[in-house]
């Protein structure tokens, strides 16, 4: 038998740790709940921090190396803070055939970031998804959690300029507002 869970203090007095604690309690602090708990941490805080990983490791009695291994193995987990806005371009087969690569280069042109990067001012992150399962709407892009279908290079540039605010392209933003 494993020893009873040791009470570990959360890394900070941030109230959001209570949500994470709740999830761990629901699974009886069993080590197999690791992925579920990491999902909760990411959902609550936006990304995974070192402190957060250490806290989860201690609470679930899983070696930190394993927690780190899991957090870096799965694409869904990120250890970098996301930008204020996110733009996820689907690069599944149907979207690829229908022009996802040109969407990526359009964002790169407009915002100067490649996939997986965030603009310096922290306004926009450009991410890619393996497949959103919205192949009927190809090419699809998720802007701040909202799926948009049949996107073209013009419409994606408009959105990106809108996110980047007045400094970069005041004209387009006004048009868009």
């Amino acid at each position, binding site marked *: 038998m494993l020893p009873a869970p040791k009470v570990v203090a959360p890394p900070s007095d941030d109230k959001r740790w209570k949500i994470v604690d709740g999830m761990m309690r629901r699974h009886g602090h069993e080590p197999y709940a690791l992925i579920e708990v990491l999902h909760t941490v990411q959902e609550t805080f936006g990304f995974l921090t070192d402190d957060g990983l250490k806290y989860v490791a201690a609470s679930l009695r899983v070696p930190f190396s394993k927690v780190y291994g899991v957090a870096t*193995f799965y694409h869904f987990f990120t250890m970098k803070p996301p930008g204020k806005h996110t733009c996820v371009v689907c690069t599944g*087969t*149907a979207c690829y055939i229908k022009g996802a690569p040109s969407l990526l280069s359009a964002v790169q042109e407009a915002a100067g970031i490649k996939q997986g990067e965030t603009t310096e001012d922290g306004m926009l992150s450009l991410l890619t998804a393996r497949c959103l399962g919205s*192949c009927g709407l190809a090419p699809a892009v998720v802007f701040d959690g909202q799926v948009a279908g049949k996107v073209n290079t013009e419409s994606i540039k408009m959105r990106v300029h809108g996110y980047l605010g007045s400094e970069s392209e005041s004209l387009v933003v006004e048009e868009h507002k």
Partner: protein
Amino acid sequence: MNQDDLALIAAQTKQSDNRYDHVVKVCVAAGCLSANADQVKTQLESELKQRGLETCCKVKGVGCMGLCAAGPLVSADANEKMFQSVTPGDAAAIIDDIVDNKPAPPAIVIDSKLDFFAGQKRVVLENSGEIDPERIEDYIANDGYEALFHVITKLKPLGVIEQVTKSGLRGRGGAGFPTGLKWTTVAKAGGHRKFVICNADEGDPGAFMDRSVLESDPHRVLEGMAIGAYAVGASKGFIYCRAEYPLAIKRLRIAIRQAESNGLLGMNIGDTHFDFRVEVRLGAGAFVCGEETALIASIDGGRGTPRPRPPFPAQQGLWNAPTLINNVETFANIPPIIRRGGEWFASIGTEKSKGTKVFALAGRVNNTGLIEVPMGMSLREIIFKLGGGIPEGRKFKAVQSGGPSGGCVPEQYLDIPVDYDSLASVGSIMGSGGLIVMDESSCMVDVARFFMDFCMSESCGKCVPCRVGTTQMHNILERITEGKAEPQDLELLKRLTGMVKAASLCGLGQTAPNPTLTTLRYFMDEYRAHIDEGRCPAGVCHPAKAEAEVNA
């Protein structure tokens, strides 16, 4: 709950639906939702309220109707009237059409007799687009949970397996392993603890069948799992679903809660001694977790890396207990098989592939969306009749089935029947059901590179042939598309495909060379054009330009 309660719920639901002269169904699956289907639904409701028609006409959110590219979709009067690309502003015109028979603008009307709908045979999707996925009563009114009650009250576990074996159902995840045989193995395995896992980690890019089933008819999957659990002697189940499918997860959770509160999941189901609980587990974006041993490792909270088989999960799976793992569509086929009998199911399809198959038709084809057809239909019929052919009068080049594990089928094989064995004979696989149509604007070398790029980054890194082999093949393919390849690279690429196929640990590596192999086999001229002439026939890659830069 017992069988009488079930019949009562069904009768009450039907009765309350029959009170309405018209039921307007709005698709609220993910595709249509992202095109504002929820606003359309609200607008239709307020339009009816305004006209005081709420008592004779009801608006209902339903699952996927199939023609996803034309969403949001609305249908009424037993699907005789269908509308496409509906905006909230069309609500008045639609109500006019349905209630007063004043035809709506032709731009939003779809002919419900279209081959896309008429050519299908719906078994798995029979409730999709018909029932409200968030109401268990709707599912029960459509014969839901009847099969489960029949099984737990009238059949012995072996009797259930007999029906499944008789049906000839094969695993719908891609490999096509006979389901009856898998169930028998788990049932025979010893031990008091067994598990049932539903594989909803639909990782193939270009495939969205499982997502659609989960979003449109989640109870069907739960019922299939419960029947499976009874047959093999398990009392605990997991659904391993991709985190990328938030709506499917939400509806599954609602369905589980409803089933539990109605006594259809949990302890003593149907007042018998059968217990079964289901939990949803989230994936975290790893393609390899579709492989069963990797999936098990992931449910256990670890990195999703596969292990050698045997022992197969049917003998030693989750927490070393015998585990039944089936795909979403496989479980969704179980309730109709039990209700109508194994022979009925076996009467559909071809000799070795029984039943129907759901395909996600996408890419360069007019009607993109979800279809369910009997096994054995030809690819030509699927693409040109149901799919409506290639847009903009372009020429068909290839259809890719089976995602990164499948191959590209060229025009000369369009007439082969779609079943597990025929597709394998031309170097592709049935796969989970994604069909991506490509026309002359796609470069086949680039497509091969795209899939190899996918496999390279999705390789879990555990075994060397896959980890290193996919990278090497990707580098060669990239050199070819960039016009930097030497003629001997082709020979090396061929040798690598054979090596990776033979030596990899799991299905990911063993099938990763398939897209490359099939394009080498059927589109060698395109490879040659890139290497020898520095030209891309489809105009996708810029091999010559790259060469010019190198020389400059």
